[in-house]
Each structure stands twice: as C-alpha cells, then as structure tokens.
C-alpha cells in the first residue's frame, strides 16, 4: 500500500486511487486529532523543513501542526530574513538545509514549477504547498475531504469555483481533482479572469453569471482576487467586483435551495464574500481549516516512506 508518486507536486500527477488513499488515511488522522493525546509516533525519525518563499498563515501553520502531530522534527524557513535575500539560489539553500539531514521538504514558492525543479535535483520527498499560479494540491485534497464529509461522495457533485480562476492554483488543483473523482465543475467570474484553456483543456463549464453558477451548484468554492499576481487591471474596481460577483446572504436565500460555501482563505470580506455569508450557516470555511491538518498528516505520512 503506497502512493504512486514519491512527491506531492500536484493533483495532476495523482491517480484516483492515490486521492482515495489520502482521503481515507486523513479520515483516520481526523480521529487521532480528537484523542486526549492528539499525536502519533509515526514520523518520529523524520525531519521536515517548511520552506516558505511566499507569505502564508493557514497553510504554514497547518503543515507545522500536522508535522508535530506526527512527531516529526520540523524547521521553518521563510525567505524574508534569510540568505535568499543575500542572493543565494533556491538549489543552494535547499542543498544546505538537506546536508543537515533533513528528509522532507514542504515548499511554497511564487514561481510556478519551483517544486518540480527541486524534485529533479534533490533526493528528499517534496510536498508542494503552493507554486505560483500552478497548483496547491493539499488545498484541493482538504477541499475534497470537506466535501466528502458533507456529501458522502464526490461523484456527480456539482461544484462551482467562483472568482479569480486565472491566477488561482487552488482552482487548478481543485479542477484536476474533481475531474478525476467524477464531480462536475463550473467556473464563474469576469471573462478577464477566466483563461480559455479552462474549457478547451480541462473540459470545465464556464459562466460569467454568478447567479447561474449558484443556481446550478451544490457547493460554491469562492476564491480571493489575487491582486498581487495581476500586473494589469482586469476589472474596474473591487467595489464593482463585489456588486457583480460578491456573494451575500440575500443572494443565497433567494436561490430556493441550500448550497455549501467554501473558501480557501484568506477572505477579503466585502469583496468576494460578505461577512453574513462567511460567518453564516452555509459556510464550512472553518471546517476546511480543521480538516487541513488531518489531510496534511495523511500526505506527509504516506510520502515519508520513499526510501523503503
């Protein structure tokens, strides 16, 4: 019993069976997190570096907690305040860290493909914690776990991904995963934020109408506008975005059905989600965060064995 890959670089490389194994294992870890002693000794011989070249709150804390719950030793690296600022290359930094006997690398980087590059050059197992606008596999897995918990299965589930699809690694990882698991996906947002390959290469439905997407879906996964990745104006203002694509309580109550609201965080309140939705009864946003630890424990546990 093992994953078909040695690294978790993206959902794109995983088989359906890999995803099922990670989700199944995560279910068992979620039970561990309810115990009086919330940890197991599985990774007590493993040292993990969390290599964050880009800002993160949830993902970094979630990974660190997952590692500690597995009894791994952890070290944290953030680019600011490190020798990266003095001009050290990514590969040099990582090789220096690995020479101190580190077994696994959890990595976030603003450049798409950075973890894939690393995987070709270093012996340690790598988990991608988000690379540029490419993938964020553990987010897609925890989203899948949260949806499975709520609906029992992903098969046939209608999932709308709403917002800045173009710059979202969460969207891409989710689309790969949902396609593999037999869910239906629709993306919604302003035309300038939806790349054409979404339909041509990934076979996803597209709408520019928020209402249509909400009317259609069982789950709406709402994304943040990634202003830090946009180097040209793609919509006129956040205020206008909110008027066309922001989700508020009234909108949800007029749908005539119940849908589940998810968000990978951080939320820009009053832009893509109003507070009465983010904190409302339809939202499972904090469950997603809770499930993130169990899912990351599963990924770390299943990848810790690559030298066996």
């Amino acid at each position, binding site marked *: *019993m*093992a994953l078909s890959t040695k690294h978790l670089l993206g959902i794109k490389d995983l088989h359906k069976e890999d995803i099922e*194994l990670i989700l*199944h*294992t995560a*279910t*068992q870890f979620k*039970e*561990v997190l309810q*115990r*009086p*002693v919330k*940890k*197991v*000794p*599985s990774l007590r*011989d493993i040292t993990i570096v969390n290599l964050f070249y880009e800002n993160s709150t949830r993902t970094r804390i979630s990974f660190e907690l997952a590692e500690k719950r597995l009894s791994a030793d952890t070290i944290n690296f953030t680019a600011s305040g490190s020798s990266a600022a003095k001009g050290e290359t990514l590969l040099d930094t990582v090789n220096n860290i690995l020479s101190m006997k580190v077994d696994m690398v959890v990595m976030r980087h603003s450049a798409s493909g950075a973890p894939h590059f690393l995987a070709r050059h270093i012996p340690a197992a790598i988990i991608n914690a988000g690379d540029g606008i490419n993938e964020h596999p553990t987010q897609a897995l925890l989203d899948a776990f949260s949806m499975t918990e709520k609906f029992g299965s992903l098969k046939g589930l209608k999932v709308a991904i709403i917002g800045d699809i173009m710059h979202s690694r969460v969207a891409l990882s989710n689309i790969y995963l949902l396609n593999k698991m037999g869910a239906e996906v629709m993306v919604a947002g302003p035309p300038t934020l939806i790349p054409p390959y979404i339909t041509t290469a990934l076979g996803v439905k597209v709408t520019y109408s928020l209402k249509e997407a909400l009317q259609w879906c069982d789950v709406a996964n709402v994304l943040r506008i990634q202003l830090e990745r946009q180097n040209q104006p793609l919509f006129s203002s956040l205020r206008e975005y909110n008027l066309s694509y922001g989700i508020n309580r009234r909108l949800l109550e007029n749908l005539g059905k119940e849908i589940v609201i998810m968000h990978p965080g951080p939320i820009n309140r009053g832009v893509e989600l109003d507070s009465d939705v983010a904190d409302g009864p339809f939202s499972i946003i904090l469950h997603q965060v809770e499930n993130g630890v169990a899912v990351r424990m599963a990924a770390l*546990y*299943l990848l*810790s*064995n690559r*030298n*066996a």
Partner: protein
Amino acid sequence: MKTILAKEQLHLTVQRLACQIREDYPDLQDTVLIGLQPRGVFLSNKIAQALQQLLPQQTFHYGKLDITFYRDDIRKELHRANKTDILFNIENKNVILIDDVLYTGRTIRAALDALVDFGRPAKVALCVLIDRRFSREFPIQPDYVGRSIDTIVSQKVKVHWLETDEQEYVELLDS
C-alpha cells in the same frame, strides 16, 4: 494444511473466553473491551455479543483500536489504516484487549502504546483466539487464550470469519 479449530469448536472457544472474562470481572463494572483492527474485531464482536447474552442487564463499553500509526515497521512498509472507535474514557478502567492471533507480540506492543494515548487504564489484559507459543519477539503474554499451538516461522495461521471469508474455522498453513 491442518484445521486447528473447526466451526463448532471455534464457537465453543469464543463462549469459553467470554465466560473466563466474566469470571474475572463479574459484572463488567469498570471493564471495557477493545478489539484490534482489522481482524481482531471479528473476534471481539463475538466476545462482546457472548458477554451481552451472559449479562443481559449489563451495559459495558466496547471499542475498536487501529494500531497502524504505531507500528514499528513503518519504514519497511505502510499498511492501510483502519477506523479507531473508542468513544469512552479508559481512565482507571480494566481494559481487555482482543486480537485473533498472538505471534511476535509486536502488534500488542503497538496497541499498548496507542492505548495509553487514550488515558491511564487501571489494568490491561490480553485475550487472543490463537497463541503461537515460542514465537515472541517482545515480553508479552496473553491472559485469555482460545488455543495454544506450536508453530515454525514458515507456517501461517489463518482465521476465517463468516464476515469476510464465508466460512468460520482456523487453519495452519505450511508454505
């Protein structure tokens, strides 16, 4: 291949184990049963059922423990994890651990580690259907034994349960 326990004997053995547990813990006060996943659970289900028939007025706690994350061979091979289901407090309780076959003792070593993460039991006892004697790699011995057998390393003990194997008996396989 040799049958160690046929269906009828297996049934009687389970009844005897339940009676022996009852003998030591008369009303099952402060006593909990915990079956080990995956295959110890078939035996613990039967023992729990037998004890309930012996003590129809009594309610007692019965849980299931998976030891996958506590195994000492994780770096050799990963095993599929199963559900742990202990929805009660084991603090100061008498815990009867139940598994189908006791061989090297490594599973029970892991189970003891896992168990104490749920609290500090007053006492832990071990109940097994088959004890493969002289094979222990840890100083662990059972308190309740269905059948003791002498085996060599190349042999395998296979317990068949109705739930998964459509038949119920225990056999010794030479390989």
